[in-house]
């Protein structure tokens, strides 16, 4: 079993919905928007981010006693940059076509404020086990967001999903979806839907609480 106790599960699951890095914390928007013109790219970017985040979180939480406070940000950045470089070369060697699509946005993972934010806010203050759980949760949440955006953009923008044609050859692609404005607009709409769902959930919980209160 992956989660041996509830604490692990808690740290993991919070990143997916409640503290979702994209929908709730609005972090890591640059790769979020830049590489999501297809679902494959989104998955690749999500995977690379997961690798970097988990790796650096683990290392940071291991070394947290050794890093002087004054230079911790620099240390974090060096650690992250190392992992990013590793991810960059690995992707280039293993799946060059995807690397070509993602281009300069792999190195830019360094500047993804979500990663630095997790080191500062969580990994540098907790045990390696929890840090990895948190990193896994956050990057899964990031992946979910990337995939949602990438899938919507790819389906409308090219009529395919993971390269599989969905609507037949006569589908008129919505070109804007794979252009920059489409990224902004789609993410805006997804956030809108997310807000709406959160609101509905809150209202539902309220009503449940109310019903419980009145029944007693």
């Amino acid at each position, binding site marked *: 079993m992956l989660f041996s106790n509830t604490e692990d599960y808690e740290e993991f699951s919070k990143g997916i919905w409640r503290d979702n890095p994209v929908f709730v914390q609005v972090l890591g928007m640059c790769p979020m928007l830049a590489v999501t013109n297809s679902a494959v790219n989104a998955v690749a970017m999500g995977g690379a981010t997961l690798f970097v985040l988990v790796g650096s979180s683990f290392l940071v939480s291991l070394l947290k006693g050794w890093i002087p406070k004054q230079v911790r940000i620099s240390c974090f950045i060096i650690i992250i940059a190392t992992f*990013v470089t590793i991810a960059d070369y690995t992707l280039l060697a293993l799946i060059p076509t995807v690397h070509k699509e993602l281009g300069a946005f792999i*190195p830019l993972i360094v*500047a*993804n404020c979500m990663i630095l934010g997790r080191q500062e806010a969580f990994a540098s203050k907790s045990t390696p086990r929890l840090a990895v759980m948190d990193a896994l949760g956050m990057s899964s949440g990031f992946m979910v967001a990337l995939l949602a955006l990438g899938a919507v953009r790819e389906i409308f923008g090219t009529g395919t999903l993971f390269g599989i044609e969905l609507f037949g050859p006569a589908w008129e692609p919505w070109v804007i979806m794979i*252009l*920059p404005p489409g990224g902004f*607009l789609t993410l*805006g709409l997804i956030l809108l839907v997310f807000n709406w769902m959160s609101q509905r959930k809150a209202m539902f919980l309220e009503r449940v609480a109310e019903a419980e209160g009145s029944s007693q």
Partner: protein
Amino acid sequence: MDSLGGIFIGSLLINNFVLTYFLGICPFLGVSNNLLTSFRLGLATTFVMLVTALCAWVLNTYLLIYAPYLQLISYIVVIASTVQFIEMAIKKLSPALFRALGIFLPLITTNCSILGLAIFSFNRGYGFLEGMVYALGAGLGFTIAMVLLAGLREETELSDVPALIQGTAMNLIIAGILSMAFMGFAGLFSSTV
């Protein structure tokens, strides 16, 4: 190779860093609620971009041809220390300017448009002058996008934007419309009329 004017217009308008490359989105969404702040942050970013372009050129010429694998790490270290140095220098030289800009400088470190600039500039094989022009265009383009969004956002504060969409969702959609408008610049001065 593009002309200098083409590079400038390209990075300023056609391939605006924020609106078509999605670089610097975090400050673009986070700090753009005030016009003056956005303007200052934009100018500070432009300045850091110019300095970074200079440093990146030095690195490209003297270090990276021998050790290309150090590209990312050297860039990021250079950017972080540049920002730190600039912060200290401003603090010493002009306390007033420091008060005005101080809080933005650390923000710039995590602004991916700076790193993006260095990497893009390298990928395009720009030399010194081209790199500087590219940085200037990118920085001013970032400033333009910031200031436009800030102006629009300040205006929306007075409107009855539906509660569901307020905040990031709204800003993203405004950015999307801005980005659509900037599509009008595509091909500017590059067409063979």
